[in-house]
């Protein structure tokens, strides 16, 4: 089988833009970026709570759209992690794993409800301040998700 290969040699405009004199040190850039992220921490924390509440509401309705739950869980993974909330981010990842296995039509609300309870607890100050407790929550979620994945997304009994 033959393939026609076309090669395009392109000037990297980004290289030209980056190579101008001035600017700042890498250390300053990283410090300023971290500071800039902190400026939106409060609104992003509020948004995380809204996303958890939305997942809670759709599971209570019994009509959770797996794609929507997956998208919200993915946002929690991304946005909690950007603020150093590693366990909440991992809870989002666990829920992504769970719901990505659902796309064949299987759907059981119970493991989602467990994730919601775990996420809400991770947002509580008493749990957030206890690293051993946070780790235990995540270990429990991983075990739950692994069990459901092994059962094909249906009730693991």
């Amino acid at each position, binding site marked *: 089988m*033959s*393939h*026609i*290969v*076309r*090669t*395009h*040699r*392109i*000037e*990297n*405009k*980004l*290289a030209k*833009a*980056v*190579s*101008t*004199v*001035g*600017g*700042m*040190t*890498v*250390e300053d*850039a*990283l*410090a*300023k*970026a*971290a*500071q*800039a*992220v902190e*400026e*939106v921490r409060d*609104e*992003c924390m509020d*948004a995380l709570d809204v996303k958890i509440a939305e997942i809670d509401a759709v599971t209570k309705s019994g009509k959770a759209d797996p*794609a929507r739950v*997956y*998208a919200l*869980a*993915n*946002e929690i*993974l*991304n*946005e*909690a*992690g*950007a603020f150093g909330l590693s366990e909440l*981010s991992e809870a*989002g*990842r666990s829920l*992504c*794993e769970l719901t*990505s296995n659902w796309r064949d039509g299987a759907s059981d609300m119970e493991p989602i409800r467990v994730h919601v309870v775990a996420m809400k607890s991770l947002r509580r100050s008493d749990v957030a301040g206890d690293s051993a407790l946070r780790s235990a929550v995540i270990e429990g979620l991983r075990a739950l998700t692994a069990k459901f994945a092994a059962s094909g997304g249906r009730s693991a009994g």
Partner: protein
Amino acid sequence: MSRWINLERVALLTLDESVHGCKILTQICRGFGIRTIRACTSVEEARNALTTAPFDLMIADPGASGDGVELIRWLRRQEQHPNRFIPIILVSGHSTPSSVRRARDSGANFFVAKPLTPATLLDRILWVSRDRRPYVEVGKYLGPDRRFKVEEPPTGLGRRNNDSTIDQEDTESAA
């Protein structure tokens, strides 16, 4: 001695369908000193922005639907488009084997796993700014040459007898 960088003149387009994900990404990039940032929260908004202004860099989350990947494939196929060959960094949270394959084949220059950290993102931006790989168009793929270590055709006496590959090299300069 600290290394100096200057991203003030970089024109950046960001795409993240999550409003807050978009804010985090934008804030990080502002911290790096990038002044011109077009922050988009939908594929259509990004497509419109790409058709109306030149950019030096695009950072995109393909989204849970993966529509962002299609945007990149579309952009790479636009003949004479000023943004056709801009460096693109894909940033993505949870991924499945199929989404990784789609991202790999999209024509993006680099893939970064979320959650984002400023250190990782800056490292990747500087990496793509140094990237000298040509773009190759073969079959359905149009993107940077994925052979990292061998960037030029091997020198030799000619084609292997059974190699029917035809090289058509275009030398283009960015618009």
